[in-house]
C-alpha cells in the first residue's frame, strides 16, 4: 500500500479538483514554484491562468478571489504563513463571509483559504507561529483542521466544493505525517462530521490536527481508557458526534493549540457544560492566555500544549481531581 504524506494529500486534492472542475483555480504567493510544495507540479499541468502567482498583496488578492467567486469561479488561496490571515481577516470575515446574507441570498462566495504550515514551525518565532482557527469559528466562517492524510485530502476536496468560504488549517506539525493509503479509497470527507479515531471507555480527549497524534500516543499508554475524538471541523462543530463519545466516557479533556481565552477548547467546554453529563469537571490543555510564541526552542515548546500537559489533565479527570 503506498505511503501518502499529509502535504502530498493536500496537493493531490488540489490537483484532482483543478482537473475535474474548470472553475477551480489557485492563487497565492510563490505558487508557481510551489514554495510550500502545496502546489507542486500544478503549474506545469494547468498553466498560468489556473495557478496564478500573485504579488505580495494579500488584502487585494483575497478580495480578488471574492470577486472571481461572485463571477462564477472557485478560487483556492494559499497563505504561506498563518499570520497573513490577520492581515486579511476583514476580507474573509467582513466581505466573503457576509455577502450571502447581506445580499439576501443573491450570491455565493465559494473561496477556499489554505494555510499549509499553521502553528509552530519550530523556530519561526512570534509572527510566524500562530494557529488562529478559533477566530474564524467565532465569526462563523467554516473552519477545518485535518489531522491525517486521508482527511487532508477529503476535507480539502469538500472545502473547494462547498459554496461558502472555508478556511483549511494544515498544521505544520501534521504536514509530514505519512499513512498507508490506497489512492482509490481517497474520497471527500464532509464538513462538520467528526470521528472517533481511538475508542476508549473512561475519558474523551478532543484533539485537532497534529495534536491527534499526541492524543493517540497518550492513549497507547492507557490502553482502552482513552477515547480520542477528532472533530475535523472546528466550525461547524460535530456536537452530536462529541455527545455520543462523552455519553460513554462521561469525562472530557480538550487539547487545543491556540490561546486559552475564547479559544476552541473554551467552546468545547461550554458545550459540555450546557449539554453533557460529566462525572468530573472537564479540563483543557491550551497555549497560555494571549500567548506569543517565543523563539528559543525550549520556550516555544513550553508555550505549546504538549503530551505531558495532556497526560496530567487526563490523570486529573480520571482521578476526579479538580
Amino acid at each position: 500500500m503506498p505511503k501518502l504524506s499529509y502535504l502530498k494529500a493536500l496537493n493531490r486534492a488540489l490537483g484532482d479538483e483543478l482537473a475535474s472542475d474548470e472553475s477551480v483555480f489557485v492563487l497565492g504567493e510563490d505558487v508557481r514554484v510551489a514554495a510550500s510544495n502545496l502546489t507542486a507540479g500544478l503549474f506545469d499541468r494547468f498553466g498560468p491562468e489556473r495557478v496564478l502567482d500573485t504579488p505580495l498583496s494579500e488584502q487585494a488578492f483575497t478580495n480578488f478571489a471574492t470577486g472571481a467567486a461572485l463571477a462564477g469561479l472557485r478560487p483556492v488561496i494559499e497563505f504561506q504563513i498563518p499570520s497573513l490571515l490577520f492581515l486579511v481577516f476583514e476580507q474573509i470575515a467582513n466581505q466573503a463571509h457576509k455577502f450571502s446574507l447581506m445580499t439576501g441570498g443573491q450570491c455565493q462566495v465559494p473561496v477556499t483559504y489554505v494555510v499549509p504550515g499553521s502553528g509552530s514551525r519550530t523556530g519561526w518565532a512570534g509572527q510566524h507561529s500562530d494557529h488562529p482557527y478559533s477566530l474564524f469559528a467565532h465569526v462563523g466562517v467554516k473552519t477545518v483542521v485535518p489531522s491525517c492524510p486521508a482527511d487532508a485530502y477529503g476535507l480539502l476536496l469538500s472545502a473547494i466544493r462547498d459554496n461558502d468560504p472555508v478556511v483549511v488549517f494544515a498544521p505544520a506539525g501534521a504536514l509530514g505525517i505519512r499513512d498507508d493509503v490506497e489512492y482509490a479509497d481517497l474520497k471527500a470527507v464532509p464538513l462538520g462530521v467528526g470521528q472517533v479515531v481511538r475508542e476508549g471507555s473512561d475519558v474523551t480527549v478532543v484533539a485537532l490536527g497534529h495534536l491527534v497524534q499526541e492524543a493517540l500516543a497518550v492513549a497507547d499508554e492507557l490502553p482502552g481508557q482513552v477515547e480520542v475524538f477528532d472533530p475535523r471541523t472546528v466550525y461547524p462543530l460535530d456536537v452530536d458526534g462529541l455527545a455520543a463519545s462523552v455519553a460513554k466516557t462521561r469525562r472530557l479533556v480538550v487539547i487545543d493549540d491556540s490561546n486559552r481565552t475564547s479559544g476552541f477548547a473554551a467552546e468545547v467546554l461550554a458545550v459540555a457544560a450546557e449539554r453533557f453529563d460529566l462525572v468530573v469537571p472537564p479540563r483543557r490543555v491550551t497555549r497560555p492566555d494571549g500567548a506569543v510564541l517565543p523563539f528559543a526552542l525550549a520556550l516555544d515548546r513550553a508555550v505549546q500544549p504538549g503530551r505531558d500537559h495532556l497526560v496530567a489533565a487526563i490523570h486529573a479527570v480520571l482521578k476526579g481531581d479538580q
Partner: protein
Amino acid sequence: MGTVDLYRTVRLIRRFEERAISFVRSGEIVGGIHPYVGQEAIAAGVCAALRPDDVITSTHRGHGHVLAKGANPARMLAELMGRESGLNKGRGGSMHAADFGLGILGANAIVGAAGSIATGAAWAYQRQGKDIVAVSFFGDGAMNEGMLLEAFNLAALWRVPVVFVCENNGYATTMPVESAVAGSITGRARAFGMPAFTIDGQDPEKVLAATTAAVGRARSGRGPTFLECTTYRFDAHHTFEHRARLNYRSTEELSTGRSRDPVEIQGARLAAEQRAAVDAEIEALLDAAAGIAMGSAHPDPAAALEFLYASAEVMR
C-alpha cells in the same frame, strides 16, 4: 444614451435621495443614509457607458450607482426600509444594496474594499471568455487605503478589464482631500501604469464620454483606466450629520459647490416642456415606488439568519 436619458437618471437619483432623506427624518428608514445629492452626474454618466451585462461595485454612498445601473426604485426604497420586497430582501440596507441580475455586485461599506472585488470579477469573466467590463466606484478617501492601491497594481499588471472611478467630492467624511492625499490622485494611478484622467464630475455628458473611452479600452484588452471625477457633496456625509452639527464646510464653500448642479447642467440641455415631462414621470414613478415600499411586508424575525450560508447543508 441621449441627453434626455442622462437627465432622467440624474433627476431620478436626486429625487430618490431627497425622498429617502425625508423618510430618514420620518423614521421610515432607520440607520440613516449617505446622501449622493450633488454627485449624480457620475453614476449617470458612467452607467450610461455600460452594457447591461457589465458589472459594478459601489460604495457606502451607493444609491446613485445602483439606480443608474437599472435597479428598480421601488425595490431599492423597500431595501432602505428593510422590507422583504427589497433588493436584498431587507438584509442589506442602504450600504449593501445589490442586484446581481443587473450586474450590481453590491454597495460596500468598507472604504476601498470593492476595488479588488471588481478586479477579481472582471478577471474571472475574461478568463471565461466573456467581454464583460467591471467598474469600481470609490471616493477620494479610498485613495489612502492600501488594499485599493494593491488592486490597482493587480489590475494594471494583469491588464484586467476594469475601470476605476474615483469620485473626488473633496472630503473623506470631514477630512479635506488636500489634508489627506499627498501628491495627486491621478498621479497615484499613473504610477501603476494606468492612463488616468481628471474629468468634470458635474457634467453627465463629459463623464459618459470619458467612461465610454475607458470601457472601450478595457473591452479591447488594453487594461484598466482610472477616472478621477471631481464633484461636490451637496448634503451631509451621513444623515446623522444634521444632528451632530459637524462644522467643516463654510457657507460660502457650500454655496459655491452647489452652484454647479448636475441636474441643472443636464436639465438646461432640454426644452422646458421636455424637462417638465421627465420631472412629472419621475415623480409618478417615485410616488408609486414609495407606495410599494411602504406597503411591503417586514421580514419575519424568525428568518433573521436566512441566507447566512449559501450551501444547502444545515449549519448548527
